[in-house]
Protein backbone atom coordinates (compact mmCIF):
# COMPACT_ATOMS: atom_id res chain seq x y z
CA UNK A 1 0.00 0.00 0.00
CA UNK A 2 1.27 3.39 -0.86
CA UNK A 3 1.30 5.94 1.87
CA UNK A 4 0.61 8.77 -0.53
CA UNK A 5 -2.54 10.64 0.36
CA UNK A 6 -5.54 9.64 -1.79
CA UNK A 7 -7.56 12.43 -3.17
CA UNK A 8 -10.90 11.51 -4.71
CA UNK A 9 -11.33 12.94 -8.15
CA UNK A 10 -13.57 15.88 -8.33
CA UNK A 11 -15.91 15.73 -11.30
CA UNK A 12 -15.29 19.35 -12.17
CA UNK A 13 -11.61 19.17 -11.49
CA UNK A 14 -10.99 16.11 -13.62
CA UNK A 15 -12.18 17.47 -16.95
CA UNK A 16 -11.33 20.47 -19.02
CA UNK A 17 -13.76 23.29 -18.61
CA UNK A 18 -16.60 23.26 -21.08
CA UNK A 19 -16.03 19.70 -22.27
CA UNK A 20 -17.94 17.77 -19.63
CA UNK A 21 -21.18 15.95 -20.27
CA UNK A 22 -23.31 18.75 -18.82
CA UNK A 23 -21.84 21.62 -20.69
CA UNK A 24 -20.81 20.46 -24.12
CA UNK A 25 -22.92 19.08 -26.93
CA UNK A 26 -22.71 15.52 -28.17
CA UNK A 27 -24.23 13.61 -31.08
CA UNK A 28 -26.65 11.64 -28.93
CA UNK A 29 -28.10 14.75 -27.35
CA UNK A 30 -28.25 16.53 -30.67
CA UNK A 31 -30.05 13.53 -32.11
CA UNK A 32 -32.67 13.66 -29.38
CA UNK A 33 -33.28 17.37 -29.87
CA UNK A 34 -33.47 17.05 -33.65
CA UNK A 35 -35.77 14.04 -33.23
CA UNK A 36 -38.17 16.02 -31.06
CA UNK A 37 -38.23 18.90 -33.52
CA UNK A 38 -38.90 16.52 -36.41
CA UNK A 39 -41.62 14.81 -34.39
CA UNK A 40 -43.44 18.10 -33.78
CA UNK A 41 -43.09 19.00 -37.46
CA UNK A 42 -44.52 15.63 -38.51
CA UNK A 43 -47.39 16.04 -36.05
CA UNK A 44 -48.23 19.45 -37.48
CA UNK A 45 -47.98 18.07 -41.01
CA UNK A 46 -50.26 15.12 -40.29
CA UNK A 47 -52.82 17.38 -38.63
CA UNK A 48 -52.83 19.80 -41.56
CA UNK A 49 -52.90 17.13 -44.24
CA UNK A 50 -55.58 15.09 -42.53
CA UNK A 51 -57.92 18.08 -42.41
CA UNK A 52 -60.80 15.88 -41.65
CA UNK A 53 -64.21 17.33 -41.35
CA UNK A 54 -66.05 15.42 -38.70
CA UNK A 55 -69.26 17.07 -39.73
CA UNK A 56 -69.35 15.21 -43.05
CA UNK A 57 -70.89 12.13 -41.51
CA UNK A 58 -73.46 14.27 -39.74
CA UNK A 59 -75.27 15.16 -42.95
CA UNK A 60 -78.81 14.04 -42.59
CA UNK A 61 -82.21 15.28 -43.56
CA UNK A 62 -84.13 14.35 -40.42
CA UNK A 63 -83.89 16.40 -37.27
CA UNK A 64 -82.52 14.19 -34.53
CA UNK A 65 -84.01 16.10 -31.61
CA UNK A 66 -87.31 17.85 -31.27
CA UNK A 67 -89.40 19.80 -28.82
CA UNK A 68 -91.24 17.72 -26.27
CA UNK A 69 -93.80 18.47 -23.62
CA UNK A 70 -93.93 16.76 -20.26
CA UNK A 71 -96.62 16.66 -17.62
CA UNK A 72 -96.27 15.37 -14.10
CA UNK A 73 -93.65 15.17 -11.41
CA UNK A 74 -90.23 14.04 -12.62
CA UNK A 75 -88.94 10.77 -11.20
CA UNK A 76 -85.87 10.84 -8.97
CA UNK A 77 -82.57 10.14 -10.69
CA UNK A 78 -81.98 6.40 -10.94
CA UNK A 79 -79.00 5.58 -8.73
CA UNK A 80 -79.63 1.84 -8.50
CA UNK A 81 -80.50 2.07 -4.81
CA UNK A 82 -82.79 -0.47 -3.19
CA UNK A 83 -85.60 0.20 -2.68
CA UNK A 84 -85.94 2.47 -5.69
CA UNK A 85 -87.64 5.70 -4.50
CA UNK A 86 -89.50 5.92 -7.81
CA UNK A 87 -91.43 2.71 -7.23
CA UNK A 88 -95.19 3.12 -7.24
CA UNK A 89 -94.85 6.76 -8.26
CA UNK A 90 -96.86 8.00 -11.18
CA UNK A 91 -94.76 8.24 -14.32
CA UNK A 92 -94.78 11.59 -16.13
CA UNK A 93 -96.73 11.84 -19.36
CA UNK A 94 -95.03 13.23 -22.43
CA UNK A 95 -95.70 14.19 -26.01
CA UNK A 96 -92.92 13.90 -28.56
CA UNK A 97 -92.42 13.15 -32.25
CA UNK A 98 -90.99 10.29 -34.26
CA UNK A 99 -88.13 10.84 -36.74
CA UNK A 100 -90.84 11.21 -39.40
CA UNK A 101 -92.44 14.02 -37.44
CA UNK A 102 -95.51 12.05 -36.31
CA UNK A 103 -96.87 13.13 -32.95
CA UNK A 104 -96.83 10.51 -30.18
CA UNK A 105 -98.41 10.94 -26.76
CA UNK A 106 -97.34 8.64 -23.98
CA UNK A 107 -99.95 8.74 -21.24
CA UNK A 108 -99.17 6.48 -18.31
CA UNK A 109 -102.39 5.24 -16.71
CA UNK A 110 -104.28 5.00 -19.98
CA UNK A 111 -104.91 1.30 -19.36
CA UNK A 112 -101.88 0.05 -21.27
CA UNK A 113 -98.71 -0.98 -19.49
CA UNK A 114 -95.56 0.46 -20.98
CA UNK A 115 -91.93 -0.41 -21.24
CA UNK A 116 -89.93 2.66 -22.19
CA UNK A 117 -86.34 2.17 -23.33
CA UNK A 118 -83.89 5.08 -23.44
CA UNK A 119 -81.05 4.72 -25.94
CA UNK A 120 -78.05 6.84 -26.87
CA UNK A 121 -76.69 6.30 -30.37
CA UNK A 122 -73.06 6.54 -29.19
CA UNK A 123 -73.32 4.12 -26.27
CA UNK A 124 -71.74 0.73 -27.07
CA UNK A 125 -74.15 -1.04 -24.72
CA UNK A 126 -77.12 0.53 -26.47
CA UNK A 127 -75.62 -0.53 -29.79
CA UNK A 128 -75.82 -4.12 -28.58
CA UNK A 129 -79.11 -3.80 -26.75
CA UNK A 130 -81.16 -2.23 -29.55
CA UNK A 131 -80.71 -4.99 -32.17
CA UNK A 132 -81.28 -7.66 -29.53
CA UNK A 133 -84.61 -6.17 -28.50
CA UNK A 134 -85.51 -5.42 -32.11
CA UNK A 135 -84.88 -9.08 -32.94
CA UNK A 136 -86.98 -10.21 -29.99
CA UNK A 137 -89.86 -7.93 -30.95
CA UNK A 138 -89.72 -9.13 -34.53
CA UNK A 139 -89.84 -12.77 -33.47
CA UNK A 140 -92.21 -12.63 -30.51
CA UNK A 141 -95.59 -11.33 -29.50
CA UNK A 142 -95.81 -8.76 -26.75
CA UNK A 143 -98.00 -9.74 -23.78
CA UNK A 144 -101.52 -8.40 -24.07
CA UNK A 145 -101.91 -4.85 -22.82
CA UNK A 146 -98.21 -3.95 -23.07
CA UNK A 147 -96.56 -1.51 -25.44
CA UNK A 148 -92.89 -0.78 -26.01
CA UNK A 149 -91.59 2.70 -26.74
CA UNK A 150 -88.00 3.71 -27.48
CA UNK A 151 -86.67 7.17 -26.73
CA UNK A 152 -83.65 8.37 -28.65
CA UNK A 153 -81.89 10.69 -26.23
CA UNK A 154 -78.54 12.30 -25.44
CA UNK A 155 -77.99 12.98 -29.12
CA UNK A 156 -74.61 14.44 -30.00
CA UNK A 157 -73.54 14.90 -33.58
CA UNK A 158 -69.91 14.87 -32.53
CA UNK A 159 -70.17 11.33 -31.21
CA UNK A 160 -70.10 8.02 -32.99
CA UNK A 161 -72.99 6.26 -34.72
CA UNK A 162 -74.69 9.53 -35.56
CA UNK A 163 -77.43 10.09 -36.63
CA UNK A 164 -79.72 7.99 -34.43
CA UNK A 165 -82.51 8.01 -37.05
CA UNK A 166 -80.25 6.02 -39.39
CA UNK A 167 -79.25 3.73 -36.54
CA UNK A 168 -82.86 2.85 -35.64
CA UNK A 169 -83.58 2.31 -39.31
CA UNK A 170 -80.57 0.06 -39.80
CA UNK A 171 -81.56 -2.03 -36.82
CA UNK A 172 -85.12 -2.26 -38.16
CA UNK A 173 -86.60 -1.19 -34.85
CA UNK A 174 -90.19 -2.42 -35.10
CA UNK A 175 -91.81 -0.38 -32.31
CA UNK A 176 -92.41 3.31 -31.75
CA UNK A 177 -89.32 5.50 -31.36
CA UNK A 178 -89.55 9.14 -30.34
CA UNK A 179 -87.00 11.92 -30.28
CA UNK A 180 -86.00 13.52 -27.03
CA UNK A 181 -85.27 17.24 -26.94
CA UNK A 182 -81.79 18.71 -27.19
CA UNK A 183 -81.87 19.13 -23.40
CA UNK A 184 -82.87 15.45 -22.93
CA UNK A 185 -86.04 16.47 -21.12
CA UNK A 186 -87.78 13.09 -21.31
CA UNK A 187 -84.68 11.36 -19.99
CA UNK A 188 -84.42 13.89 -17.19
CA UNK A 189 -88.09 13.47 -16.29
CA UNK A 190 -87.60 9.72 -15.99
CA UNK A 191 -84.44 9.96 -13.86
CA UNK A 192 -82.03 8.82 -16.54
CA UNK A 193 -78.48 8.32 -15.24
CA UNK A 194 -76.97 5.73 -17.59
CA UNK A 195 -77.64 3.88 -20.84
CA UNK A 196 -79.40 1.77 -21.82
CA UNK A 197 -82.18 2.59 -19.39
CA UNK A 198 -85.54 0.85 -19.19
CA UNK A 199 -88.60 1.89 -17.21
CA UNK A 200 -91.57 -0.38 -16.65
CA UNK A 201 -94.94 1.26 -16.03
CA UNK A 202 -98.07 -0.69 -15.17
CA UNK A 203 -101.51 -0.11 -16.66
CA UNK A 204 -102.35 2.33 -13.86
CA UNK A 205 -99.40 4.52 -14.73
CA UNK A 206 -97.23 3.60 -11.75
CA UNK A 207 -93.54 2.89 -12.08
CA UNK A 208 -92.93 -0.76 -11.23
CA UNK A 209 -89.39 -1.28 -12.56
CA UNK A 210 -86.32 0.74 -13.50
CA UNK A 211 -83.23 -0.89 -14.89
CA UNK A 212 -79.95 0.56 -16.15
CA UNK A 213 -77.80 -1.64 -18.33
CA UNK A 214 -78.23 -4.31 -20.93
CA UNK A 215 -81.03 -6.83 -20.57
CA UNK A 216 -80.77 -10.36 -21.88
CA UNK A 217 -83.82 -12.04 -23.35
CA UNK A 218 -84.73 -13.66 -20.07
CA UNK A 219 -84.68 -10.34 -18.16
CA UNK A 220 -86.53 -8.63 -20.97
CA UNK A 221 -89.30 -11.22 -20.97
CA UNK A 222 -89.53 -11.08 -17.17
CA UNK A 223 -89.93 -7.31 -17.35
CA UNK A 224 -92.68 -7.53 -19.95
CA UNK A 225 -94.58 -10.11 -17.91
CA UNK A 226 -94.02 -8.06 -14.76
CA UNK A 227 -95.67 -4.92 -16.14
CA UNK A 228 -98.42 -6.75 -18.01
CA UNK A 229 -101.91 -6.41 -16.55
CA UNK A 230 -102.99 -9.54 -14.69
CA UNK A 231 -105.22 -11.57 -16.98
CA UNK A 232 -108.65 -12.65 -15.83
Amino acid at each position, binding site marked *: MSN*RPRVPKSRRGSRPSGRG*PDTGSNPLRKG*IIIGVVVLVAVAVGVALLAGRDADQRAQTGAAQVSDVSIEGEPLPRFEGREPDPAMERRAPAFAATTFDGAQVSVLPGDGTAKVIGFFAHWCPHCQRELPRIAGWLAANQLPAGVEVIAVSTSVDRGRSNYPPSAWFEEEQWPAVVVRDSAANEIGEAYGLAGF*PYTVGIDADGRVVARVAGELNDEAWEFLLDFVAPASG
Partner: protein
Amino acid sequence: MSTGQVSDFFAVLALGSLVIGCWGAVAALASGAEARARQLRPVLLPLALAIAAVSTAGSLYYSEAAGYPPCEMCWYQRIGMYALVPVLAVAVARRDRSGGWYALPLAVAGLGLSVYHYQLQLFPAQGSTCDAEAPCTYQWVDSLGFVSIPFMAGCGFIGVAGLALLSLRSERHEAPTTVAAVEPA
Protein backbone atom coordinates in the same frame (compact mmCIF):
# COMPACT_ATOMS: atom_id res chain seq x y z
CA MET B 1 -58.39 23.84 -36.81
CA SER B 2 -60.93 21.11 -36.09
CA THR B 3 -60.86 18.83 -33.07
CA GLY B 4 -60.02 15.96 -35.42
CA GLN B 5 -56.92 17.75 -36.66
CA VAL B 6 -55.85 18.61 -33.12
CA SER B 7 -56.36 14.95 -32.22
CA ASP B 8 -54.14 13.84 -35.10
CA PHE B 9 -51.50 16.29 -33.90
CA PHE B 10 -51.63 14.94 -30.36
CA ALA B 11 -51.74 11.36 -31.66
CA VAL B 12 -48.46 11.76 -33.53
CA LEU B 13 -46.85 13.41 -30.50
CA ALA B 14 -48.14 10.59 -28.32
CA LEU B 15 -46.61 7.98 -30.60
CA GLY B 16 -43.36 9.93 -30.49
CA SER B 17 -43.52 9.91 -26.71
CA LEU B 18 -44.11 6.17 -26.82
CA VAL B 19 -41.00 5.67 -28.93
CA ILE B 20 -38.93 7.97 -26.70
CA GLY B 21 -40.15 6.25 -23.55
CA CYS B 22 -39.47 2.75 -24.85
CA TRP B 23 -36.05 3.82 -26.07
CA GLY B 24 -35.32 5.43 -22.68
CA ALA B 25 -36.30 2.29 -20.82
CA VAL B 26 -34.23 0.05 -23.08
CA ALA B 27 -31.28 2.46 -22.94
CA ALA B 28 -31.51 2.49 -19.14
CA LEU B 29 -31.33 -1.27 -18.94
CA ALA B 30 -28.80 -1.94 -21.72
CA SER B 31 -25.05 -2.06 -21.22
CA GLY B 32 -23.35 1.31 -21.28
CA ALA B 33 -26.44 2.92 -19.81
CA GLU B 34 -24.46 5.06 -17.38
CA ALA B 35 -22.35 6.72 -20.06
CA ARG B 36 -25.39 7.24 -22.26
CA ALA B 37 -27.36 8.68 -19.40
CA ARG B 38 -24.55 11.07 -18.46
CA GLN B 39 -24.36 12.31 -22.04
CA LEU B 40 -28.09 12.94 -22.20
CA ARG B 41 -28.58 14.13 -18.64
CA PRO B 42 -29.27 17.79 -19.48
CA VAL B 43 -32.16 16.90 -21.76
CA LEU B 44 -33.80 13.92 -20.03
CA LEU B 45 -35.87 15.56 -17.32
CA PRO B 46 -36.64 18.70 -19.39
CA LEU B 47 -37.95 16.42 -22.12
CA ALA B 48 -40.01 14.47 -19.57
CA LEU B 49 -41.36 17.81 -18.32
CA ALA B 50 -42.27 18.81 -21.87
CA ILE B 51 -44.15 15.53 -22.38
CA ALA B 52 -46.07 15.96 -19.12
CA ALA B 53 -46.85 19.60 -19.92
CA VAL B 54 -48.08 18.84 -23.44
CA SER B 55 -50.16 15.93 -22.13
CA THR B 56 -51.70 18.23 -19.53
CA ALA B 57 -52.40 20.85 -22.17
CA GLY B 58 -54.02 18.19 -24.36
CA SER B 59 -56.16 16.98 -21.50
CA LEU B 60 -57.34 20.50 -20.78
CA TYR B 61 -57.97 21.11 -24.48
CA TYR B 62 -60.30 18.12 -24.67
CA SER B 63 -62.28 19.02 -21.56
CA GLU B 64 -62.33 22.81 -21.84
CA ALA B 65 -62.15 23.57 -25.57
CA ALA B 66 -63.56 20.46 -27.24
CA GLY B 67 -66.16 20.00 -24.48
CA TYR B 68 -65.50 16.31 -23.80
CA PRO B 69 -66.41 15.66 -20.16
CA PRO B 70 -63.69 13.67 -18.37
CA CYS B 71 -64.89 10.32 -17.07
CA GLU B 72 -63.91 8.80 -13.74
CA MET B 73 -60.88 6.98 -15.17
CA CYS B 74 -59.78 10.17 -16.93
CA TRP B 75 -59.73 11.98 -13.60
CA TYR B 76 -57.54 9.32 -12.01
CA GLN B 77 -55.05 9.64 -14.88
CA ARG B 78 -55.16 13.41 -14.57
CA ILE B 79 -54.04 13.10 -10.96
CA GLY B 80 -50.85 11.43 -12.18
CA MET B 81 -50.20 13.55 -15.25
CA TYR B 82 -50.99 16.94 -13.75
CA ALA B 83 -48.86 16.22 -10.69
CA LEU B 84 -45.92 15.31 -12.91
CA VAL B 85 -45.70 18.86 -14.24
CA PRO B 86 -44.79 20.65 -10.98
CA VAL B 87 -42.71 17.70 -9.77
CA LEU B 88 -40.60 17.68 -12.93
CA ALA B 89 -40.56 21.47 -13.18
CA VAL B 90 -39.03 21.75 -9.70
CA ALA B 91 -36.56 18.97 -10.49
CA VAL B 92 -35.49 20.72 -13.70
CA ALA B 93 -35.31 24.16 -12.08
CA ARG B 94 -33.19 22.82 -9.24
CA ARG B 95 -31.21 20.52 -11.53
CA ASP B 96 -32.14 17.77 -9.16
CA ARG B 97 -31.15 14.54 -10.84
CA SER B 98 -33.11 12.54 -8.31
CA GLY B 99 -36.31 14.08 -9.70
CA GLY B 100 -36.79 10.86 -11.59
CA TRP B 101 -37.47 9.09 -8.31
CA TYR B 102 -40.51 11.30 -7.74
CA ALA B 103 -41.75 11.18 -11.30
CA LEU B 104 -41.42 7.44 -11.80
CA PRO B 105 -44.14 6.24 -9.38
CA LEU B 106 -46.62 8.78 -10.74
CA ALA B 107 -45.87 7.76 -14.31
CA VAL B 108 -46.05 4.04 -13.62
CA ALA B 109 -49.33 4.36 -11.68
CA GLY B 110 -50.74 6.57 -14.44
CA LEU B 111 -49.67 4.07 -17.07
CA GLY B 112 -51.50 1.28 -15.25
CA LEU B 113 -54.68 3.36 -15.22
CA SER B 114 -54.30 4.25 -18.89
CA VAL B 115 -53.87 0.62 -19.89
CA TYR B 116 -56.97 -0.35 -17.91
CA HIS B 117 -58.99 2.51 -19.39
CA TYR B 118 -57.90 1.78 -22.96
CA GLN B 119 -58.83 -1.89 -22.74
CA LEU B 120 -62.17 -0.79 -21.24
CA GLN B 121 -62.78 1.18 -24.42
CA LEU B 122 -61.71 -1.74 -26.60
CA PHE B 123 -63.85 -4.24 -24.72
CA PRO B 124 -66.83 -2.33 -23.31
CA ALA B 125 -68.74 -5.54 -22.62
CA GLN B 126 -67.04 -5.69 -19.19
CA GLY B 127 -69.80 -3.42 -17.94
CA SER B 128 -73.40 -3.21 -19.02
CA THR B 129 -74.18 0.46 -18.81
CA CYS B 130 -72.89 3.81 -20.06
CA ASP B 131 -72.92 6.71 -17.64
CA ALA B 132 -75.20 9.37 -19.11
CA GLU B 133 -72.67 12.16 -18.74
CA ALA B 134 -69.19 10.68 -19.02
CA PRO B 135 -69.00 6.96 -19.72
CA CYS B 136 -65.53 5.43 -19.35
CA THR B 137 -66.21 3.05 -22.21
CA TYR B 138 -66.93 5.76 -24.74
CA GLN B 139 -64.12 6.66 -27.12
CA TRP B 140 -64.29 10.41 -27.71
CA VAL B 141 -61.23 10.41 -29.92
CA ASP B 142 -60.33 7.78 -32.49
CA SER B 143 -57.32 9.15 -34.31
CA LEU B 144 -55.35 7.10 -36.84
CA GLY B 145 -57.74 4.25 -36.21
CA PHE B 146 -56.53 3.29 -32.75
CA VAL B 147 -55.40 6.33 -30.75
CA SER B 148 -57.87 7.35 -28.05
CA ILE B 149 -57.40 9.75 -25.14
CA PRO B 150 -56.26 7.09 -22.61
CA PHE B 151 -53.93 5.69 -25.28
CA MET B 152 -52.34 9.12 -25.60
CA ALA B 153 -52.14 9.45 -21.81
CA GLY B 154 -50.46 6.05 -21.63
CA CYS B 155 -47.91 7.12 -24.24
CA GLY B 156 -47.22 10.26 -22.19
CA PHE B 157 -46.69 8.21 -19.04
CA ILE B 158 -44.37 5.81 -20.90
CA GLY B 159 -42.37 8.76 -22.23
CA VAL B 160 -41.96 10.26 -18.76
CA ALA B 161 -41.21 6.89 -17.15
CA GLY B 162 -38.58 5.93 -19.73
CA LEU B 163 -36.79 9.26 -19.48
CA ALA B 164 -36.98 9.28 -15.68
CA LEU B 165 -35.55 5.77 -15.59
CA LEU B 166 -32.64 6.75 -17.81
CA SER B 167 -31.98 9.88 -15.77
CA LEU B 168 -31.68 7.74 -12.67
CA ARG B 169 -28.90 5.73 -14.28
CA SER B 170 -26.81 8.89 -14.51
CA GLU B 171 -27.51 9.58 -10.85
CA ARG B 172 -26.42 6.15 -9.64
CA HIS B 173 -22.91 6.53 -10.98
CA GLU B 174 -22.40 10.10 -9.98
CA ALA B 175 -18.90 10.76 -8.65
CA PRO B 176 -18.66 12.77 -5.44
CA THR B 177 -18.53 16.48 -6.16
CA THR B 178 -16.76 17.55 -2.99
CA VAL B 179 -13.09 17.03 -2.32
CA ALA B 180 -12.58 14.81 0.68
CA ALA B 181 -10.10 15.71 3.33
CA VAL B 182 -6.67 14.27 2.84
CA GLU B 183 -6.24 11.40 5.20
CA PRO B 184 -2.88 10.21 6.37
CA ALA B 185 -2.11 6.63 5.51
